[in-house]
């Protein structure tokens, strides 16, 4: 195995003592086939145990090791050292508050996930005795791609709209709304529209497309958002231009009222 000495420039921030973040340089002897996360682990084990960062699976499935690597949002367990030359600059995910060193606070994203109701709201509830909700492979394919999200938040770090307007629900959460809207077992679209079809929802998106370029799970959030813009526009046309048209949101409140009575 070939060795290589790698220069890492890591953004450090200690909330107990610092008011600003600063870069710290580490020189690490690495194996040629390592990823950036391996290099960080080596720093923590041999050079500086105070370095903080998140990771778990080391195989691009848990979504916890997202960082900015040379300015690009990446899973550090999926960023191979051989793809980088010179000093590698490692920063916490952009657009999220820094908790400590490379650890960011994901609270805002978690809150937004909840708001889009990312679970199946059955069209018609039926007792377990009536068996499972069935789905054909074609019905599955309609949303499968959008169910591959690993909640790594790289798309939020890539999205300038989210950086500029933090109230934007953002790519991954809106894509999850789409995932459930597209599910043949789901009947919750009207409820989700109250969050989706708003200025904080899909209409904040100006289709920069960066989310889809950085997504490690090939979810293509940009496509989900554009599709939701089209269906939301169709809703608007039905509501405003068709005689007797009802908006998706009206339908939601009618159903809510029905539930209560």
């Amino acid at each position: 195995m070939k060795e290589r000495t790698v220069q890492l420039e890591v953004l450090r921030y200690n909330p107990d003592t610092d008011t600003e973040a600063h870069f710290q340089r580490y020189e690490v002897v690495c194996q040629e086939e390592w990823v950036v996360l391996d290099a960080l682990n080596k720093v923590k084990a041999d050079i500086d145990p105070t370095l903080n960062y998140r990771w778990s699976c080391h195989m691009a499935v848990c979504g916890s090791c997202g960082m900015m690597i040379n300015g690009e949002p990446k899973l550090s367990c999926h960023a191979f050292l051989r793809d980088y030359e010179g000093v590698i600059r490692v920063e916490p995910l952009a657009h999220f508050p820094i908790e400590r060193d490379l650890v960011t606070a994901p609270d805002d994203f978690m809150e937004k996930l909840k708001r889009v109701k990312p679970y199946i709201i059955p069209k018609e509830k039926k007792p377990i005795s009536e068996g499972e909700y069935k789905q054909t492979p074609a019905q599955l394919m309609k949303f499968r791609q959008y169910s591959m999200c690993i909640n790594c938040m790289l798309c939020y770090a890539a999205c300038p709209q989210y950086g500029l307007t933090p109230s934007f629900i953002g790519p991954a959460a809106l894509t999850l709304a789409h995932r459930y809207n597209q599910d043949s077992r789901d009947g919750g679209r009207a409820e989700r529209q109250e969050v989706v079809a708003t200025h904080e929802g899909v209409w904040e998106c100006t289709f920069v497309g960066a989310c889809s370029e950085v997504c490690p799970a090939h979810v293509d959030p940009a496509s989900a958002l554009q599709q939701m813009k089209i269906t939301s526009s169709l809703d608007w046309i039905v509501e405003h231009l068709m005689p007797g048209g009802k908006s998706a949101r009206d339908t939601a409140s009618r159903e809510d009222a029905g539930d209560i009575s």
Partner: protein
Amino acid sequence: MSRKPLVRECPPTTWYFRQPRYMRYMSREITSIFVGAYCVLLVVGLQRLADGPTAWEGFLLALQSPASIVFQILAFVAAVYHAATWFNATQKAMPLQIGEGFVPGNLISGAHYAAWAVLSLIVLILAGVF
């Protein structure tokens, strides 16, 4: 231990210099200025036409000035670039599922390019170019 998260603001006016993909996005957005300006030009032309033959002749003459030709070339390039970005986006916004598979994206964008070519041809024929 209390939390004291550090917020790093996104620079509101210079953010698009951070990444080549942001610059690409901005260039797409800027082309719309040319598209809009050309629409204004068309409306002015219509107004001149309504004002009578002399006004219309004057408008046509003004179109042939070097500055006007430079603008028209720029507007043409911008409009083609702008249109192409949208045609390429159609495959994302309007996927077509047949059974368990999806129609290849290139076909969807390609169909839009084809429709564009046919419509342009019809317009050119109606305008008596051929």
